[in-house]
C-alpha cells in the first residue's frame, strides 16, 4: 500500500496536462498527478472520459496540448525523436487488441521489445545478439508459453497473444508498464489471469503499472490505487478502500449497474506466470 512505502521520489508527474483534439473535444482537462515506482494504478471512467488519452500521453502516442509530463525528472514533452524513442524503450505497453505482428513468429514479436536497445543495422538485418534472444525466450518462459516461440502469432488464442504482448513489454526491461484495456477482448477467467499476472509482475519487478479498465469490480479487486476520470478531469484518486458507491456515481454520473461488474471467477486456474524464484517450468 502506498502509505507504507518509505518516501520515494515520484517517477511520473503530470502537471496541468490537457489534450484538446483538432475537432475541439477536450479529452483531458488540466490533469495533475504524481506516481511512485512500483504502484499498480487502475484508471476507470466512462468511454470517452479520457482514460486512453491519459495513458497514451505518457509515451506520447498522443501529444498533450498543454502541460508538462515528467518522467524520472525529465520533461518528455520537450523530447526530440531520438530522445523520445529512448524514453519509449523504457515504457512497455500492451493493448486491447494485442497488436502483435500477426504473420511473424512469437519469438520475433517478443524480440521487437529489444529494438530500441540495439543498433538499427543489426535489427534490420535480423542479427539479434544471442543474449537478447535468450532474454526474449526467458520472457516467454515467464509468461508460461515458451513452447510457442516459433509459431505464427496469429495461431495463438486471445489470452496467449496477450501474454506474448506482455512478454514483449517485459523484454524491454521497462520501468513503467502501460495497459490500455488489456482484458476487454478476453473471457472472464482469462481476463482475471492476465490481471493477476500483471499485478505479480508489477510487484516483482517494481514496475509502475497503469491499467485502463472498464469494469469497476475488477478495478477494485486488483488496484492499489484508483484514478477515476470524468470528462477529462480527475474526480477520484486514492486507494480502493476509498471507493464507495457515491464516488462511483461521481465517476460514472449514475448509479452502479450490473453490467459495470465483470463478475467473480468460478474456476481459478493456476496462474501460468512464474514467480522469479522458479527458473524452469
Amino acid at each position, binding site marked *: 500500500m502506498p502509505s507504507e512505502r518509505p518516501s520515494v521520489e515520484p517517477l511520473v508527474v503530470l502537471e496541468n496536462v490537457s489534450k484538446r483534439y483538432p475537432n475541439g473535444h477536450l479529452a483531458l482537462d488540466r490533469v495533475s498527478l504524481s506516481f511512485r515506482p512500483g504502484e499498480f494504478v487502475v484508471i476507470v471512467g466512462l468511454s470517452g472520459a479520457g482514460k486512453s488519452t491519459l495513458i497514451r500521453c505518457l509515451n506520447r502516442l498522443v501529444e498533450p496540448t498543454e502541460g508538462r509530463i515528467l518522467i524520472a525528472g525529465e520533461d518528455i514533452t520537450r523530447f526530440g525523436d531520438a530522445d523520445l524513442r529512448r524514453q519509449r524503450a523504457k515504457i512497455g505497453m500492451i493493448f486491447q487488441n494485442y497488436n502483435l505482428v500477426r504473420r511473424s513468429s512469437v519469438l520475433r514479436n517478443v524480440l521487437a521489445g529489444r529494438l530500441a536497445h540495439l543498433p538499427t543495422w543489426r535489427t534490420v538485418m535480423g542479427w539479434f545478439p*544471442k*543474449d537478447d*534472444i*535468450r*532474454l526474449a*525466450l*526467458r*520472457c516467454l*518462459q515467464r509468461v508460461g508459453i515458451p513452447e510457442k*516461440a*516459433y509459431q505464427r502469432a496469429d495461431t495463438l488464442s486471445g489470452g496467449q497473444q496477450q501474454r506474448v504482448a506482455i512478454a514483449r513489454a*517485459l*523484454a524491454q*526491461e521497462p520501468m513503467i508498464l502501460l495497459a490500455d484495456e488489456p482484458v476487454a477482448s478476453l473471457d472472464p477467467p482469462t481476463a482475471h489471469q492476465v490481471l493477476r499476472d500483471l499485478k505479480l509482475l508489477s510487484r516483482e*519487478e*517494481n514496475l509502475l503499472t497503469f491499467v485502463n479498465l472498464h469494469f469497476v469490480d475488477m478495478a477494485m479487486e486488483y488496484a492499489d490505487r484508483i484514478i477515476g476520470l470524468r470528462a477529462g478531469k480527475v474526480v477520484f484518486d486514492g486507494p480502493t478502500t476509498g471507493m464507495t458507491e457515491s464516488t462511483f456515481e461521481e465517476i460514472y454520473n449514475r448509479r452502479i449497474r450490473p453490467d459495470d461488474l465483470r463478475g467473480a471467477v468460478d474456476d481459478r486456474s493456476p496462474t501460468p506466470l512464474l514467480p*522469479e524464484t522458479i*527458473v524452469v517450468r
Partner: protein
Amino acid sequence: MSARTARPEVAETEIPRPPFPWQGWIAAVAVVGLLWWSSMPPPIGTGFNLREVVEGWPQMQVFFQRLFPTPDRPWPLDYLPQIVNRMTETLKIATAASIFGAVFALPFAMLAARNLAAGRIVYGFGRGLLNLIRTIPDLVLAALLASAFGIGPLPGVLALTIFTFGVVAKLLSDTIETVDPGPQEAITAAGGNRIQQALFAVFPQVAPDFVAYSLYAFEVNIRAAAFLGYVGAGGIGMILNRDVKFFNYGRVGLIITTIFVTVLIIDTVSTTIRRRLV
C-alpha cells in the same frame, strides 16, 4: 529483467532450434533456377542481359522522341480526318461486339449459374466452355478470324463478341449465384418454371450489374479494338500497323495520342455511369 534480474539465469537459457523452412528454400531455388534458365542466351533462353538494354536505350529514345511533334517536324494534321474515320470504325467495332457479346452472354450466364442451371452437367459444361473461351487471348482469336473472314472490321467484331461473351457471362453468372433466393422461391412455390424464375426473380436483381458489366466490357473492347487492327481486324490498328512498318513516326505519334484521348474520355464517362448504377 535488468540489473534487477539475476543475469546468470538468462545466460543459461537454451535457444531452441528454429524449424528449417524447407518450403521456402525449395521455392526460392526453383524460382532462381527458372529465371536463370530464362535469361540464358538463345536457343536455351531469351538472351536477356542488361548490357543490351543499355546499348539499345538510345535507339528506343529516338523512337519515342520521333512520336512527338517538334517545331520543324510537326504532326501531319492533314492526316487527322483519316484517323478520326478509322477511330470511329474502331468505336463501331467495339460497340457492336459489346452489344452482341452481352446479349448472348445474358441467357448463357443463367445457364452457368449454380442456382439456375438445369442440373450439374449443364452447369459444368457452361462453366467449362466459359473458361475455355476466356483462355484464348483475343489477339490470337482475331488473327485467326482475319484469315477466315478476310481482313476488315468483321473478324474484329467477331473476335471481340466472343471475348465479351466470355467476360460478361462469367461476371454475370458469379453475380447471379450471389442473388437473394427469396423471389425465386416465391415463384417456384407459385408453380413457375426455371425460365420464369430467371425472368421475374433473377433478372430484375442483376439487371444493373448486367449493364455495368457490359459497360466494363465496352471499355476493354475499345482498347482491344484499337490494337486488333494491328493483325488485320479493322479500325485504327490497321493504319497504325502500316505507319509503323513504313517508319512514319509522326503519324504513329498522332494515332497513339488519338487513341489515348479517346480511351480516356470513354473510360471517364463509362466509369461514372457504372458508379451510378451499382
